[in-house]
């Protein structure tokens, strides 16, 4: 062991002062030879013979010097330097080739490392919790296996018992999503927050950056006494002012002003609260703005309002946790009727967090890898062709005694140099691409704000460059390795031509490229068709010329009614405004409040899990006219449908279809809570609209008059006669005139909202289209190159053919046929590949099957057409081969 260290160290030393060591050794050998010569002379030899006898007895000095040098330091290090120097020189000599090859690789490496950087930032960066792999979300599922429309939480009584009794967990904590406003005189600011139980920060392993966390005394019933600020919100709203700690802040709807006790560490995001997922402003991928202590209310221990997260003990599997928890929950359910029908389903936190990101990023990664492979194919073909031009050189070098391994290394080194250049260029492209993604893909990829175009891009880029060098260099290197110097030297044929073997190899590479490109094109085609289908879908309402913004009155309850009525009057009076309405549940915003209700004529629910839950909306009278949702039965809301009037509701046709299939809804009643109360009369029915998701069939909906439902957060919706963006300033001015503290946020046109709801599809479509265009260009260049080389290599054969009577058209047909077979072969392979791969896009598609024959046929035919165009120039060149060439060559 010690000797190997000694040897290693002396070899490291050997890296330096190579020249000195060489000359010292030369002197040592000289001395030896002279002494030996002298000895021979003393023994009576002729001085001339003595010298050569000494050399004979000593052995080959050159070989010895070489061996000495190699064992003095690492065997191949000086050789690598030499290879690098030589490689640079060769690439410098043919700049056009080098630039094209490096650029080709840069495109592939750039695309792939950009997507890799997204994956690194979104999927591979762990959340800032301690040992996040131990954290388990505990959502509920129905015991009968049926799906629920909305996810139910857990009762405090249940999870408190779990925390006490389940041994598999270190701790279990309850949490919920909360939403409020920081009241400010110049326009209030919305805050998304988490309500957390006493155990939460300990279970998650979160620490504050400044100040301190919650004490036990912060938890209790009544007013919230203290809050924590999220780091990003603290920066945004308070400019990072540490003085805020210990001070109070005003929060809407809270009677007392809580004290800020601390600031949470940066980068902490929400845990999913499925029950709140349809609230406005709910964004599970955002960073948490405020933290509010929450303690189970002893009066409401059976209220299923908590979401639950647990941390498994070290070495405990999720399966064991699941078993223990399920057993305890089953016994809880048998003891208490309210708990019946639901069981826990453990879900690793990191899986849940990455679900959306993985859904979009993995297919894109696949696509970018295809681009990289296509680029490698081109680079390999270029290197191979150049290798053919240099066969003579290789042969001479082998004949002169370069080892085949040495030659292999040399060829690979050249590939590596190209790839490093390409990689560096590619990293530049990737940095640009990541910036671009961050601008265009904000709504498509979750947590994109955490992605930075930093060292990760460089690392991925260079890593990929090495990989690319290997893929692109392998084929030419193997050709060089198997080169028979005798054949090449004997042949001495024209340079830049390829034998049948090489041509087959190149055809293979090009076919593979065509297949990969076709797979990309099919993916892009499927997504484009999807977008076309979505555009064709009738949403049931208008999206044009509609402006929306979330408007919230943050003062006390008494101000609510006057504020909204005044605001509507003033906004409606603005020139250019056709209609104005307040609404809660504006289409495609994701706002969706599920209410549990009883409907006339429906059997009373036997179990908790059988209750009817439907999406609820609230609107002021002009809303349906504004949206273009026609009334199909009964009447619309009136200004008089307020607290003083009887409760009324409007439903959509889907509601009638589901609950009163053979009659009508108008005149029926629904109840929230017990049927003993007066109930709500259905007074109208409107047409269906795809309000939740453009790709989903409309669901039953219940609309309430806003004057009766008093929604706290809601949108102001304005229909204008011209471009809706022109009235933004005026609308804001009017609202502020009514109450300067009102929060006005998320100003968007309905078209923007529509586009955002399709963002992940649009992003995937754009990226795949971009990638497939890139891949197609590379592949077409590849096809052109292969056919050109083929024509160049077959000049003599073509000349002979035309000398013995072949017409130009025959020769063109010959080469054309070669191209056609190549392209069609590649396209068929690509269709097979696409059939296998397109399944990963399934979740993005709408009314298009992954194996959609129309897409396959169109894309395939299109590519054959374009591919044949790439053959056109070489085919023409082949037709012009002069029969005299046949004679000239001999």
């Amino acid at each position, binding site marked *: 062991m010690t*000797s190997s260290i*000694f*040897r290693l160290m*002396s*070899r490291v030393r050997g890296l330096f002062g190579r020249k000195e060591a060489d000359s*010292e*050794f030369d*002197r*040592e*050998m000289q*001395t*030896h030879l*002279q*002494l*030996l010569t*002298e000895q021979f002379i003393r023994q009576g030899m002729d001085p001339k013979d003595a010298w050569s006898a000494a050399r004979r*007895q*000593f*052995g*080959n*000095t050159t070989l*010895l010097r070489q*061996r*000495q040098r190699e*064992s*003095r330091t690492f065997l191949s290090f000086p050789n690598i330097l030499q290879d690098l120097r030589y490689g640079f020189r060769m690439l410098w000599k043919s700049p056009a080739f080098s630039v094209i090859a490096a650029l080709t690789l840069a495109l592939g490496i750039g695309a792939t490392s950009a997507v890799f950087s997204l994956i690194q930032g979104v999927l591979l960066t762990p959340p800032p919790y301690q040992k996040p792999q131990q954290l388990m979300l505990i959502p509920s599922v129905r015991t009968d296996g049926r799906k629920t429309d909305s996810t139910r939480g857990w009762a405090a009584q249940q999870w408190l018992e779990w925390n006490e009794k389940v041994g598999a967990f270190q701790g279990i904590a309850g949490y919920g999503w909360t939403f409020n406003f920081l009241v400010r005189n110049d326009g209030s600011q919305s805050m998304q927050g988490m309500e957390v139980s006493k155990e939460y920060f300990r279970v998650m392993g979160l620490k504050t950056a400044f100040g301190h966390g919650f004490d036990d005394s912060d938890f209790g019933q009544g007013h919230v006494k203290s809050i924590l600020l999220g780091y990003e919100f603290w920066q945004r709203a308070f400019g990072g002012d540490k003085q805020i700690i210990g001070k109070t802040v005003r929060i809407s709807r809270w009677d007392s002003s809580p004290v800020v006790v601390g600031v949470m560490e940066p980068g902490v995001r929400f845990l999913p609260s499925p029950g709140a997922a349809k609230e406005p402003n709910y964004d599970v991928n955002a960073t948490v703005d405020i933290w509010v202590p929450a303690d189970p209310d002893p009066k409401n221990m059976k209220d299923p309002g908590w979401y639950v997260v647990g941390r498994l003990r070290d070495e405990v599997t999720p399966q064991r946790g699941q078993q223990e928890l399920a057993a305890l929950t089953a016994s809880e359910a048998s003891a208490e009727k309210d708990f019946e029908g639901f069981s826990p389903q453990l879900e690793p936190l990191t899986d849940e967090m990455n679900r959306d990101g993985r859904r979009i990023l993995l297919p894109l990664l696949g696509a970018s890898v295809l681009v990289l492979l296509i680029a490698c194919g081109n680079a390999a073909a270029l290197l191979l062709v150049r290798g053919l031009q240099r066969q003579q050189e290789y042969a001479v070098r082998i004949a002169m005694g370069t080892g085949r391994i040495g030659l292999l290394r040399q060829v690979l080194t050249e590939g590596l140099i190209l790839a490093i250049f390409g990689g560096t260029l590619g990293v530049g492209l990737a940095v640009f691409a990541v910036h671009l993604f961050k601008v265009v893909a904000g709504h498509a990829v979750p947590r994109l704000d955490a992605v930075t175009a930093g060292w990760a891009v460089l690392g991925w880029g260079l890593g990929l460059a090495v990989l690319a060098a290997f893929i692109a260099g392998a084929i030419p290197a193997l050709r060089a390795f198997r080169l028979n110097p005798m054949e090449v030297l004997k042949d001495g044929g024209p340079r830049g031509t390829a034998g049948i073997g090489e041509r087959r190899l190149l055809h293979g590479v090009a076919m593979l490229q065509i297949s990969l490109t076709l797979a990309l094109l099919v993916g892009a085609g499927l997504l484009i068709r999807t977008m076309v289908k979505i555009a064709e879908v009738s949403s049931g309402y208008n999206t044009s010329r509609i402006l929306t913004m979330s408007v919230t009155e943050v003062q006390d309850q008494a101000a609510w009614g006057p504020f909204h009525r005044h605001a509507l009057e003033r906004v409606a009076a603005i020139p250019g405004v056709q209609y104005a309405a307040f609404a809660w549940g504006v289409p495609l915003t994701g706002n969706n409040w599920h209410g549990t209700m009883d409907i006339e004529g429906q059997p009373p629910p036997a179990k908790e899990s059988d209750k009817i839950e439907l999406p609820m909306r609230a609107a002021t009278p002009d809303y349906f006219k504004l949206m273009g949702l026609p009334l199909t039965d009964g009447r619309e809301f009136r200004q008089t449908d307020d607290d003083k009037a009887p409760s009324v509701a409007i439903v959509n046709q889907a509601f009638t279809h589901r609950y009163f299939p053979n009659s009508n809804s108008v005149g029926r009643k629904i109840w929230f809570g017990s049927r003993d109360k007066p109930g709500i009369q259905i007074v109208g029915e409107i047409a269906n609209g795809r309000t939740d998701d453009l790709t989903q069939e409309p669901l039953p909906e219940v609309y309430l008059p806003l004057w009766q439902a008093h929604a706290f957060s809601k949108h102001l919706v304005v229909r204008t006669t011209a471009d809706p963006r022109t009235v933004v300033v005026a609308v804001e001015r009017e609202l502020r005139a009514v109450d300067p503290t009102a929060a006005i946020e998320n100003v968007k046109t309905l078209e923007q909202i529509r586009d955002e709801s399709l963002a992940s599809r649009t992003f995937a479509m754009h990226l795949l289209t971009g990638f497939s265009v890139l891949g197609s260009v590379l592949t077409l260049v590849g096809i052109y190159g292969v056919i050109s080389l083929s024509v160049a290599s077959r000049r003599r054969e073509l000349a002979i053919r035309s000398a013995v009577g072949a017409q130009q058209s025959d020769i063109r047909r010959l080469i054309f046929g070669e191209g056609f077979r190549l392209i069609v072969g590649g396209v068929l392979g690509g269709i097979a590949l696409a059939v296998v791969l397109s399944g990963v896009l399934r979740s993005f598609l709408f009314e298009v099957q992954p194996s959609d024959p129309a897409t396959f046929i169109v894309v395939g035919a299109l590519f054959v057409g374009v591919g044949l165009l790439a053959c056109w120039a070489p085919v023409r060149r082949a037709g012009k081969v002069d029969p005299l060439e046949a004679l000239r060559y001999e």
Partner: protein
Amino acid sequence: MSSDIFFAMAKGAILSADKSEVLQGTLDMMILKTLHVLGPQHGFGIARRIEQVSEDVLTLNEGTVYTSLLRLQQQGWIESEWGTSENNRKARFYSITRRGRTQLTVETENWERISGVIGRVLRLEAEK
């Protein structure tokens, strides 16, 4: 490290064509022994001594002595410095180190044990 020779022998025995491997291992040992007995020597001196002792049984390219010397030096078993030879020539003189002496003892024992075993095996073969 003490197993170097054994491996060399084993390799030589299996790949019987590769005689220099056997020679190499043993050459290292012979050089160490020479330096141990004669004190600091230059390469020429070492070659002469081995020639003298081996009585023409071993023929070697004297150059290989230097390969051996470099290897021994890298192991830290010998060290070298420049000096002047008998007829005023500059030459590099090699001398054995303390680690080298330990190594020599180990390898000598090893060699004797192995050659004893091989001798016994060969005698057995002859009696049969």
